[in-house]
């Protein structure tokens, strides 16, 4: 028996050309660990920032270098699928990470330093913490963690088997759990957010893993293509497969922040340093929806009928929870978190619809949402009072009179989130809703339109607060940021408008974006 097993093993073929973006990012992460170990403290921060930005730019060039038509295919024993969707999502994730890195590198808006604790091992409020802060130390490990997380995000949406999916999920999430807990201000809040994110994240990934085990028992393989074959080959759907499929969906729906698995979203978005919130609201959403779309379109399409009731219910609950509870929020970061839950609900329509048009719409939606969300959180990080960020909505009153430019840019992002024409949000929503309607999902589209209207109320409320309400007297100021944050806000605002006015180039780009089955 053993000789037979050994004879079976052949070296896997690895297509380095297709893997280049992932290898570059993970290689950069390893280099970043070395910089952490060997560089003197004074110059470490600038070295890390230079390394991270270079890595991301080179990785983006590597993505552009992949010619989608020429080399579609699987690599490393079918564990990764490089197809049109992968290339688009990888490019999008790297661009979001670049903007995120610009925000994380910001150290001008807080007089004490960047957004992260000087030494996150020092107790909050202790003399050590004070001493480290006075010495002007920076926690530069964040850059290694950041790059590892980006590496996980790049693998997550292109994983073609359930094991790779699970490992990528953890590589993406574990660094994020830590980054969430490292804020410089309001550290108790930040640590608590990290704990909640970690416990719920580990819980949901355990569900996903157990679901993978059940699916493996049914299909005798964890490859997505084999699972689809096993599903179509079996006459009656087995309960093993159904339960396994639902468990896998629970894990993925948790990551996209769909109700009833959304509880972590507002807490983590509020507690995390705002730059990290911006990065994860874009990157995690894109990566997780990419993975959800792939698993659902490639592996579970045979279960679509069995799962439709569950998915309809989840989509409706998600849209309503996101908008209705969002209306009641008084914290700007929590409000944006509920907005992201609502957007997850809208995007679920694209998952359920299962058509090429729905896929295109979802990918466009993700592209628009990623930049809008990055920009919105970037603006949030600028509005401050003496103790840090002024996140209470009441403190935003009258902002339009004091800093009209920032208030106008924020209005643009809010309008895009609400889906007003001439912004990327409108085009994305329209594409997804139209595709869903064509596939006979009219009831869901009606709920989505109503939810959009309710959501519009809380976006407009903030706009009214900024422009037509007098300041409450709290000392709130808009800090002038360094070049990095200014560039990030400019880029995201321009992308939000350009995608809204001339969306066609992106749809042309998506025309050959299909899943490899």
């Amino acid at each position, binding site marked *: 028996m053993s000789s037979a097993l050994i004879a079976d093993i052949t070296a896997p073929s690895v297509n380095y050309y297709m893997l280049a973006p992932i290898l570059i990012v993970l290689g950069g992460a390893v280099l970043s660990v070395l910089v952490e170990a060997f560089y003197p403290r004074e110059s470490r921060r600038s070295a890390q920032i230079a390394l991270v930005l270079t890595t991301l730019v080179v990785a983006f060039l590597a993505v552009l270098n992949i010619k989608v038509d020429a080399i579609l295919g699987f690599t490393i024993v079918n564990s990764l699928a490089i197809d049109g969707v992968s290339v688009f999502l990888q490019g999008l994730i790297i661009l979001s990470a670049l903007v995120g890195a610009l925000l994380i590198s910001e150290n001008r808006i807080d007089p004490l330093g960047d957004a992260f604790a000087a030494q996150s091992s020092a107790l909050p409020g202790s003399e050590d913490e004070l001493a480290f802060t006075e010495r002007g130390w920076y926690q530069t490990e964040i850059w290694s963690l950041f790059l590892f997380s980006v590496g996980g995000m790049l693998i997550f949406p292109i994983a073609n088997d359930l094991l790779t999916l699970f490992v990528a999920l953890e590589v993406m999430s574990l660094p994020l759990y830590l980054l969430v807990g490292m804020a410089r201000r309001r550290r108790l809040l930040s640590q*608590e957010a*990290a704990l909640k994110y970690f416990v719920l994240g580990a819980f949901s990934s*355990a569900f996903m893993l157990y679901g993978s*085990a059940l699916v493996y028992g049914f299909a005798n393989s*964890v490859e997505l293509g084999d699972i689809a074959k096993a599903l179509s080959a079996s006459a009656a759907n087995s309960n093993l497969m159904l339960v396994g499929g639902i468990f896998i969906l629970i894990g993925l729906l948790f990551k996209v922040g769909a109700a009833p698995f959304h509880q972590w979203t507002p807490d983590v978005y509020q507690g995390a340093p705002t730059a990290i919130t911006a990065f994860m609201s874009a990157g995690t959403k894109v990566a997780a929806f990419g993975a959800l779309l792939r698993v659902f379109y490639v592996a579970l399409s045979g279960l679509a009928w069995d799962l439709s009731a569950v998915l309809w219910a989840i989509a409706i609950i998600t849209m309503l929870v996101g908008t209705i509870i969002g209306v009641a929020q008084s914290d700007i970061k929590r409000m944006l978190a509920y907005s992201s839950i609502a957007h997850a609900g809208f995007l679920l329509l694209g998952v359920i619809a299962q058509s090429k048009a729905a896929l295109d719409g979802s990918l466009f939606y993700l592209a628009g949402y990623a930049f809008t969300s990055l920009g919105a959180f970037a603006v949030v990080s600028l509005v401050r009072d003496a103790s840090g960020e002024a996140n209470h909505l009441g403190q935003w009153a009258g902002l339009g009179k004091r800093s009209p430019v920032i208030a106008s840019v924020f209005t643009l992002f809010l309008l895009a989130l609400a889906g007003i024409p001439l912004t990327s949000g409108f085009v994305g929503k329209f594409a997804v809703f139209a595709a869903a309607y064509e596939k006979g999902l009219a009831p869901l589209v009606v709920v989505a339109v109503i939810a959009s209207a309710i959501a519009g109320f809380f976006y407009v409320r903030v706009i009214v607060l900024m422009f037509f309400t007098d300041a409450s007297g709290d000392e709130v100021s808009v800090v002038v940021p360094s070049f990095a944050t200014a560039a990030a806000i400019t880029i995201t605002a321009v992308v939000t408008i350009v995608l809204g006015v001339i969306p066609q180039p992106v749809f042309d780009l998506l025309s050959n974006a299909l899943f490899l089955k």
Partner: protein
Amino acid sequence: MELNNFILLSAILFSIGAVGVLVRRNAIVVFMSVEMMLNAANLAFVTFAKANGSIDGQVIAFFVMVVAAAEVVVGLSIIVSIFRTRRTASIDEASLLKF
């Protein structure tokens, strides 16, 4: 050897773990419950590998162990830092973030 028994055992372990996460207060115990869920999945993988006559499931179990170890490092560091701040590892005590 009746393989169904092993699957049943893994389902029971998974359920105990899931209930443990939901009802226990101590972060360490919650964390142990999560590990139990992962190990239940491992048992299922290995059993199905035996039942289906492929070794994929056994290899996957190794990957899961590695991931679980990494998760322990991250999870314990978060729990320890919270414990040092608050002198408690109770999940319910950490309740600053509320609606």
